[in-house]
């Protein structure tokens, strides 16, 4: 589904990603772990199409098409979704109107008619229930004054509404208490199928107890330095990242 080939990316002239290779197949959950500043969020942003980052080398292939040159909205039309680490507050736009606009713009780009209003309403209710969101929440301004947990719930609510093929979850667990973490990860798990894939980006292993990955990658200094199964996450939780850095130093 997603192939990242020798991806180099920089921001304001400073290289952050230094040759990332990654392949995610349909039905898989991959986790990217790494210390602060290793480039995890940059990778998420570059996959989503953030123009603040310049791709200097390499390609991003999504469903056999090279999407490196596509804008963020065009990538969303193809079925890529990014759950933000820090969702942006947009006063004056309600959650409901925002999601309606989003769904219908994606449908328009795909040559489909607007979603019928009753179908939209039904879906909004169903997905809000999945994320245990209050109705009142839906008429509030997008992310304005939301707590950390509410913002993340709202991100996964949008994901549930948009049903992306590839969901990139950037530090979705940060700022969540244990109840919110359960609700959010339950939402993510319910949305999982053989046709879609998830890329979980996280600093801590905690989230991976709830969203169990098939593959775990360790990202240090802009490179994937180690790949393993879910047990790798447990080792990282116990031993931190230093032992990998030492291993790398010995190899060098």
């Amino acid at each position: 589904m997603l192939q990242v080939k020798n991806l180099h990316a920089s921001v304001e002239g400073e290289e952050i990603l230094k040759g990332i290779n990654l392949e995610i197949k349909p039905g898989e959950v991959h986790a990217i772990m790494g210390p602060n500043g290793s480039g995890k969020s940059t990778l998420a942003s570059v996959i989503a199409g953030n123009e603040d980052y310049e791709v200097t080398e390499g390609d991003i292939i999504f469903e056999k098409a090279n999407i490196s040159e596509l804008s963020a909205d065009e990538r969303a039309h193809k079925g890529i979704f990014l759950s933000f680490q820090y969702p942006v507050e947009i006063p004056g736009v309600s959650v409901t109107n925002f999601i309606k606009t989003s769904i219908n713009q994606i449908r328009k780009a795909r040559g489909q008619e607007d979603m019928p209003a009753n179908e939209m309403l039904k879906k909004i209710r169903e997905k809000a229930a999945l994320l245990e969101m209050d109705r009142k929440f839906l008429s509030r301004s997008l992310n304005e004054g939301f707590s950390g947990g509410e913002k993340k719930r709202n991100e996964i609510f949008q994901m549930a509404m948009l049903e992306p093929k590839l969901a990139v979850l950037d530090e979705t667990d940060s700022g969540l208490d244990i109840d919110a973490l359960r609700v959010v990860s339950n939402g993510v798990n319910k949305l999982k199928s053989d046709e879609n894939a998830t890329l979980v980006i996280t600093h801590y292993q905690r989230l991976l107890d709830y969203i169990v990955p098939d593959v775990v990658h360790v990202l240090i200094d802009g490179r994937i330095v180690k790949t393993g199964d879910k047990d790798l996450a447990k080792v990282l939780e116990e031993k931190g990242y230093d032992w990998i850095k030492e291993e790398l130093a010995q190899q060098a």
Partner: protein
Amino acid sequence: MDLKEKLISSFFAFEEQIDLENDVHVLRNKAIEFFELNGFPTKKDEDWKYTSLNKVLKHDYSIFPKREVAIDYKDIRKYCLHEIDTYQIVFVDGVYSSHLSSTTHDKFDACLMSSALNNPKYEPLIKKYFNKIAPEDSLVSLNTAFSKEGAFIRVPKSVIAEKPVEILHFSTGNEAAMMLQPRNLIVAEENAHLQIIERHQSLTDNPVLTNSVTEMFVEKRAQVDYYKIQNDNENASLIDNTYTEQHDDSLSSVHTFSLGGKLTRNNLNFYQKGEHINSVLNGVTILENKQHVDHNTLVHHQQPNCESHQDYKGIFSDQSVGVFNGKVLVDKIAQKTDAFQSNNNILLDDKSSINSKPQLEIFADDVKCSHGCTIGELDDEALYYLKTRGIPEKEAKALMMFAFANNVLDGVKLPAVKTRITKQIARKLGVELGFEL
């Protein structure tokens, strides 16, 4: 001959058309003398520092239409609120058009200024209200000198005007350039309710300059909501002078939507003469090209326990220019005044500009007065967020601009007006509205 000279010499021709015995003519004579002495305002006047009339005064305007031009309803239908039932007072090149209008004398009066001026029945009202609150400045004086036609609306005590009243001015382009001086008088007596929609529209690209004066009296417990839709074409300029006097427990709101026109100047003043008054001044300004809009507001708190809310939002692209000069004056006696003023602006281009000047003059010591002014750009991060949800750049920008203006649009109590304005804004931003607000 420059415009000032032309206007002064035209006054004699004007006098041949009107009843010189009328008391109002004393005011006209005085007014033309004032205008002759003072002329048009220039940038040397503090209140006109950021707005020059030079470029709109250079045309050779006709002061009176040479002949009446009949236009069909189909030519103006789209400018009327045909989706709801309204009374309509329609003027074509400054002349009342009876076949396009639908006036009333039934439960309240929505008719012509000329008939009010000439009908003895209205004499006490004219005596009581005409030219009583419009200040003596050169533009008002010019209008007063030529005052003859416009809208006259009077809602008697405890009457709720069941339909909104539209005041519509059309210019046909029959004259190479046309200057108009409409004069409106609006009186809402005790407990009366009234909604008004005003629009000036030229039907061709020939230059038009409108110098309009509206005096509005909102008596005890009365309520008037006034919507001004300013979306004229690129050669049309408007100077709108609107003065509102309010009495105890009254509510008056003026909502100004400035979306088009060459130069628009809004002189909007509120005088609070009683207690527990609420005055609302809302504005959305969205400009492009070289359009220029100047909002000059005054709220004069003259009695205790009153409120005023001013909320003006501006979005400027290309080389457009905005001016906001908002003055709040609180007299010593006006304790417990709650005055709020906000002017927020987004500049989309380096060459667009906004001059924002809030002025608070407070002589009372127990008041709550706040004002704020912001000038910014669209938030790139928010734009990116919307794009990751599949909303293309143009639509994402439009959505953010709507969100920015949303609280002002929310203040529109007539749904048909809100829908109209929302659509006009969407058209201006070049998007199809996939979102509702």
